[in-house]
């Protein structure tokens, strides 16, 4: 769980795309009194797959619609490939969008749907037919050219929608919750297929999603949004391993957050009401004074469970005793909820292969020792 597989392997190779291909400069959007996007800055690289991640109402969809030209920003500029497109209407932007509902035209068949954008551009019939055929082959929907949208499954409709938004070779492709209309079962397979197709095309992509797993598998970089602003931006690994805020830490994956106060000026230990032993940060907070409040995140898979050792040496810093209260079998790992003496509940993931090494698996009511290393602590701002 700590290193999520990256299905399209795009982040494995160095990103060579130029910075600032798409620039969102100080963009705000107000609906009446409500500020949905709040003085937001963002820069997306050429050929990058970028994800905007956040819960509903965080302004991510509005930001996407501003990029598409379906919404006019209240202030700020949108710059694409060096051109200021802020005042360009949607139909004149080199930007195409795949809608959440796919928005396939129900009165046109698959090829007419895909050809629609080319027709508006005035592409001559032979070329149009050729390009429609090519893009339908690319998404493996060539055999369905004369089907009506209502005759297709959800996954097939999604691929037609993708073909329709790719056929004009846009400079920027926008994906609005691309998987939300699909069954959970076929989502993973579809994520992989979509990633493969987009990698082949090599188009710059901005995706909006509320599903952190989707963002982490598909995106090269992602931005966590909350209340119209970006909370954290980075590669999936970056944001997961080193969340900068409690919001980001809790939004991306699950985590245990502890609040403590610095034991002494410039020290490295925290007193935490919920833990009996101090929390050892492993580095000195040079500029902080005693009593300074610090929030720390510990991922559930970074906590190790063991049988409580009787000798005093075992009860060091960065450890605690807890009673097993809930057990959830998750397949590759088992989820434990342990209650500390302070009645604080801590979440721990134990991988299958570690669990089989136990003499007997921890059961309800067992007292276990929790331990974590200094490196698994992330200080939140």
């Amino acid at each position: 769980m700590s290193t999520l597989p990256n299905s399209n392997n795009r982040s494995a190779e160095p990103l060579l795309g130029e910075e600032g291909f798409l620039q969102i400069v100080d963009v705000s959007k107000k609906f009446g009194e409500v500020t949905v996007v709040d003085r937001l800055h963002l820069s997306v690289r050429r050929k990058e797959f970028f994800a905007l991640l956040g819960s509903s109402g965080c302004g991510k969809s509005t930001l996407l619609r501003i990029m598409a030209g379906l919404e006019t920003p209240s202030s700020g500029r949108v710059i694409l490939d060096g051109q200021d497109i802020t005042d360009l209407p949607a139909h004149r932007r080199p930007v195409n969008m795949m809608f959440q509902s796919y928005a396939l035209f129900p009165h046109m068949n698959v090829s007419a749907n895909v050809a629609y954008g080319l027709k508006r551009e005035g592409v001559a019939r032979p070329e149009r037919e050729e390009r429609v055929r090519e893009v339908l082959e690319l998404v493996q929907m060539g055999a369905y050219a004369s089907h009506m949208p209502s005759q297709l499954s959800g996954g097939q409709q999604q691929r037609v929608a993708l073909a329709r938004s790719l056929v004009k070779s846009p400079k920027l492709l926008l994906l609005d919750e691309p998987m939300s209309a699909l069954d959970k079962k076929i989502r993973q397979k579809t994520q992989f297929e979509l990633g493969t197709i987009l990698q082949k095309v090599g188009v710059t992509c901005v995706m909006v999603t509320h599903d952190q797993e989707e963002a982490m598998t598909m995106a090269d970089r992602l931005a966590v949004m909350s209340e119209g602003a970006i909370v954290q931006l980075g590669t999936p690994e970056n944001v997961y391993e080193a969340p900068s805020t409690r919001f980001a830490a809790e939004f991306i994956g699950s985590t245990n957050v502890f609040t403590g106060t610095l034991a002494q000026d410039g020290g490295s230990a925290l007193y935490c009401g919920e833990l009996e032993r101090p929390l050892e940060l492993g580095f000195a907070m040079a500029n902080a004074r005693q009593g300074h409040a610090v929030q720390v995140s510990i991922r559930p898979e970074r906590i190790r469970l063991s049988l409580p050792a009787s000798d005093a040496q075992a009860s060091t810093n960065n450890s605690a005793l807890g009673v097993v209260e809930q057990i959830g079998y998750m397949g590759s790992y088992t989820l434990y909820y342990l209650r500390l003496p302070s009645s604080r509940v801590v979440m721990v993931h134990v991988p299958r292969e570690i669990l089989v090494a136990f003499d007997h698996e921890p059961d309800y009511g067992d007292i276990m020792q929790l331990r974590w290393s200094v490196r698994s602590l992330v200080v939140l701002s």
Partner: protein
Amino acid sequence: MARTTQPFYQRALLRWMPGAKGWAIGLPFAFLLVFFMLPFLMVLKISFAESTMDVPPFTHLLVLGQDKLTVLLNFESYLTIVQDDIYFAAYASSLTVAFFTTFFCLLVGYPTALLIANARPALRNLLLMGIILPFWTSYLVRVYAWIGILKDQGLANRLLMHLGLSDTPLALMHNTFGLYVGMVYSYLPYMVLPMYAFLVKMDASLPEAARDLGAKPWEVFFTITLPLSLPGMSAGCLLVFIPSVGEYVIPELLGSSQDLMIGRVMWSDFFNSIAWPLASAATCVMVALLLLPMAWFQRVQNREPQAL
């Protein structure tokens, strides 16, 4: 599965009245049977009778006498309708008026419905009220009100002369203009309401997707909005066309006395000539004529969407 998704009051109703489902369908049918089908069958019966000076002013179809039941079907009324040019002219002008009324209602009603459907929800309810509100006044009173507006010394003429657009009062009523003003005014809600109901539930992302793919605003309308609203249009047209064929009051009050409409011919057959069988036959022919466009619209409605 279907039962569990029902609201509680429906489940309660079904528990206490197991036949409620049948009643729910049966009651409107019974209503239609008693108040529409039976009267129509009576009219159909009268159309095959012979006109007399008795009360009622027509003969019976079934005569029982001397061990014989005689059925007397008289086709004279239908022959008259076919032979007398006045009926053909009346049908033709009624259908023409109904056609243009429908056309003008569509022309005015479509943009109105589109405007209401795209308005902010608060404004939308206000606009809908504006369409529905006149229904609270009697239809006859509203048509009479137009006389006050359109007559020689009426509101419209006084305004025109006050603005200096005309020196003498214009003839705004008792002619074709007055007729269409009254017809379009009265039937417009029947076009706007079904069109609105259709447009408001249309997926808003479809026009957006078209814009995103490079369609100019007018292209969005003609390639997406218009073709997708065809069923709403046909419903509205049907609701306007059918009642306007038999319209009697508006041509009588606002139209020209020379306009020969089928409603007026029937009126004069019934009340002036006391020729009930003839008037009944004229009614039956009109119903037959109306069934044709209805059948056609029904086909349009049910047709599978075509590839463009």
